[in-house]
């Protein structure tokens, strides 16, 4: 066993020996850290359960009655439970609106929530900043407007969109002037959050800035922004779509505009798009013609049944099948007169989908 105590190893073996020591220490550190995490998780779960047991009824009562929000006795919040308080209050805010939301704000002002959120906003951790921003947005605290405004530009997607939402909640007029020009640039913002934000501001407030942003944008940006155009007021949207279909040649913009057609405006232009060289434009045109449902377009739709693209044939067949002036027998006759096998097959499929086969 004397080799265990040898010291005359060559340099490579000595490095290996030191490496073993390093590996051992690292392994122990990782093990201890993992155990620490486990204990912290267990403790965190217990703390949250304790917190919820004390506060659940308080939140529920406050949501239901302003008097309760003003007078209910508040359980004490330990230092460790502060984050739980913010999280649970935000959770409650996100599921209610109207009087219940106002009552929760009254309740919050009786607690440390506003001060805590303002302090947390200064922390470095992104998750802390997000929680603080969300809280201050729900509180509609105008004192922090400028600091929230600065966070809208943050590179972290979740933080920046949360800040954008908070800004609009605090001051919708100001928020919209900041946020709308950013939408195209911040394509990392989840689209449904952007829609929520625009809806929150209201169509009368967003119509003009969004209209201007779309009109002045490059084609690619136009296409992207048009995805939110359904939130614009109807008459502004109608004018926008008609203009874009008339003026624009970019397939992406045409496609996005076609998706927004609701009435009869721009019908001649739409009919001409059934011959467009780009297949997704033809497909969208077929869909719109089906939606408009006019007899004069039947032959156009029929001619699209032998298009080289499956989706164009499919949408044309779907549109024909849904035309209100064609009954089952007329549809079958239309199918039987198709000389092209692809056209007949596609009609067969859409008939089956509509339960007509």
């Amino acid at each position: 066993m004397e080799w265990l105590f040898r010291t005359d190893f060559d340099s490579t073996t000595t490095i290996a020996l030191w490496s073993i020591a390093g590996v051992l220490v690292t392994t122990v550190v990782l093990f201890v850290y993992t155990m620490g995490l486990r204990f912290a998780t267990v403790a965190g779960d217990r703390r949250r359960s304790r917190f919820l047991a004390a506060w659940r009824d308080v939140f529920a009562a406050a949501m239901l009655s302003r008097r309760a929000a003003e007078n209910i006795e508040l359980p004490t919040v330990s230092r460790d439970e502060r984050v739980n308080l913010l999280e649970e209050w935000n959770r409650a805010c996100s599921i209610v609106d109207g009087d219940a939301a106002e009552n929760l704000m009254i309740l919050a002002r009786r607690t440390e929530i506003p001060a805590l959120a303002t302090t947390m906003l200064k922390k470095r951790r992104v998750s802390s900043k997000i929680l603080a921003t969300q809280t201050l947005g729900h509180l509609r605290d105008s004192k922090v407007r400028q600091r929230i405004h600065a966070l809208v530009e943050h590179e972290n997607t979740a933080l920046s969109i949360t800040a954008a939402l908070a800004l609009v909640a605090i001051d919708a007029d100001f928020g919209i002037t900041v946020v709308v020009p950013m939408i195209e640039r911040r394509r990392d913002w989840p689209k449904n959050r952007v829609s929520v934000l625009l809806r929150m501001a209201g169509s009368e407030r967003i119509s003009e800035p969004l209209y201007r942003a779309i009109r002045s944008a490059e084609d690619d940006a136009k296409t992207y922004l048009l995805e939110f155009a359904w939130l614009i007021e109807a008459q502004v949207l109608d004018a926008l779509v008609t203009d874009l279909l008339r003026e624009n040649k970019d397939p992406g913009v045409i496609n996005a505009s076609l998706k927004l057609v609701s009435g009869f405006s721009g019908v001649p232009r739409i009919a001409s798009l059934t011959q467009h060289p780009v297949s997704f434009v033809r497909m969208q045109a077929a869909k719109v013609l089906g939606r408009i449902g006019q007899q004069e377009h039947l032959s156009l739709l029929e001619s699209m049944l032998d298009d080289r693209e499956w989706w164009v044939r499919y949408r044309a067949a779907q549109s024909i099948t849904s035309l209100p002036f064609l009954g089952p027998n007329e549809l079958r006759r239309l199918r039987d007169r198709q000389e092209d096998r692809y056209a007949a097959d596609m009609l067969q499929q859409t008939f089956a989908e509509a339960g007509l086969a």
Partner: protein
Amino acid sequence: MTLQDFVLTGQWVFLAYFVGINTGYLLQNVIAAHGIRKYLQTADQYEAENVFSSLDIPISLVVPAYNESVSIVTSVKAMLQLEYPQYELIVVNDGSTDDTLQKLIDEFGMQEFPEAYRARVESTEVRSVYRSTRIANLRVVDKVNGGSKADASNAGINACRYPLVCVVDADSVLQPDSLRRVVRPFLEDPTTVAVGGTVRIANGCTVRQGFLEKVGLPKNFLALVQVVEYLRAFLFGRMGWSPINGLLIISGAFGLFHKETLIEAGGYNPKAVGEDMELVLRLHRLMKKKRKPYRITFVPDPVCRTDAPENLKDLKGQRVRWQHGLGQALALNRSLITNPRGGAVSWVAIPFYMVFELFGPIIEVAGYFFILICGFMGWLSWPEAAIFLGLAVGLGVMLSTSAIMLEELSFGMYPRFRDLALLYFIAIVENFGFRQLTAIWRFQGLMRWLRGGEHKWESITRSSSLMDEAK
């Protein structure tokens, strides 16, 4: 060269390999830990805010099935209950010789449907398409057996109608929110073309109605070792490559793809043994050729569980197949290796995979023989050998400990302290016997690839958790 020179050279080769592979793994660990921390910073917030709850990227879920009569109904029922606003489920019956198709027809009221099926990627002939009379988003594609999962997947891809395609094994146990989690990179970055998620072992877990009810560890030793292996493979093996866009594998058990890019790449290769890896490499190749920015990425969320082999025969078959697939996939996409614009894929990931994953077993197996021969001939310095063995085992344990730490940091799926203790125990004992055995199987897989071999549907003996569930 004298025998002594040969032995000395051999020592340095093994040492260089040892240093290289462990440095690589350690770097992956660091990158993965950073990536997971970053991901988790906002994951809770995204969850709480329900950010992606009603987004409009519908998904087509493709489930290739061959002789899955035992579990297909339970699997489909579970997949129909996933938490996602809009998706369709396409089961592909690849000419099963059992009553897989009939079970689907009976259970879900499937009726033949005159679908204008279009073959955009290669697959064998489709006999018919069925549509459920009860569930609007369920279809079954019945096709002539193509002999591989890849062929069946392609038929499913052809029938897809939505922009994202998720290919899932019929026996996979999915997390109810798996689609919501795995779609996140597509929403955050429009250049994303493929996303993989963490696959875990189902053995030992309680599964009810196709859903995971309780997480547990298997009693079977081989399955237990694979639990630790999967933690290593996914939490730092994959997560370590993803931030540098060097991910080469998305597990065939669960992967989400941008459909048009998938079709442009030609779909799955029916002749590939490791069709999942081959596809990812081909996607890299396609995107490099197009010179467009793209991301192939990975989410650490455990999205799916799969059955692990519980006997040596199945395990050997799986490992031989994986190694064979690795060699074939790299060979089929060899143009990536020399691509000057290949980035991290060509300059880091592929060289690492070639040296340490593909040809590594040659060095490892040769190393074992080398030690045996040197020991037998009396050329071995036992103290030094013990030190290097200790270091190898220590590094192995450390990497596994790190993977367990990442698991605890991210998802903490094993809530009992007893389970954690068992994982640490396995992290130590797997170094004695199991690793050597897998090195030999991988060597055999490498030889099978070099000799050329065929691929067909392969199945493993199911663990009782999934079988019982299906009864």
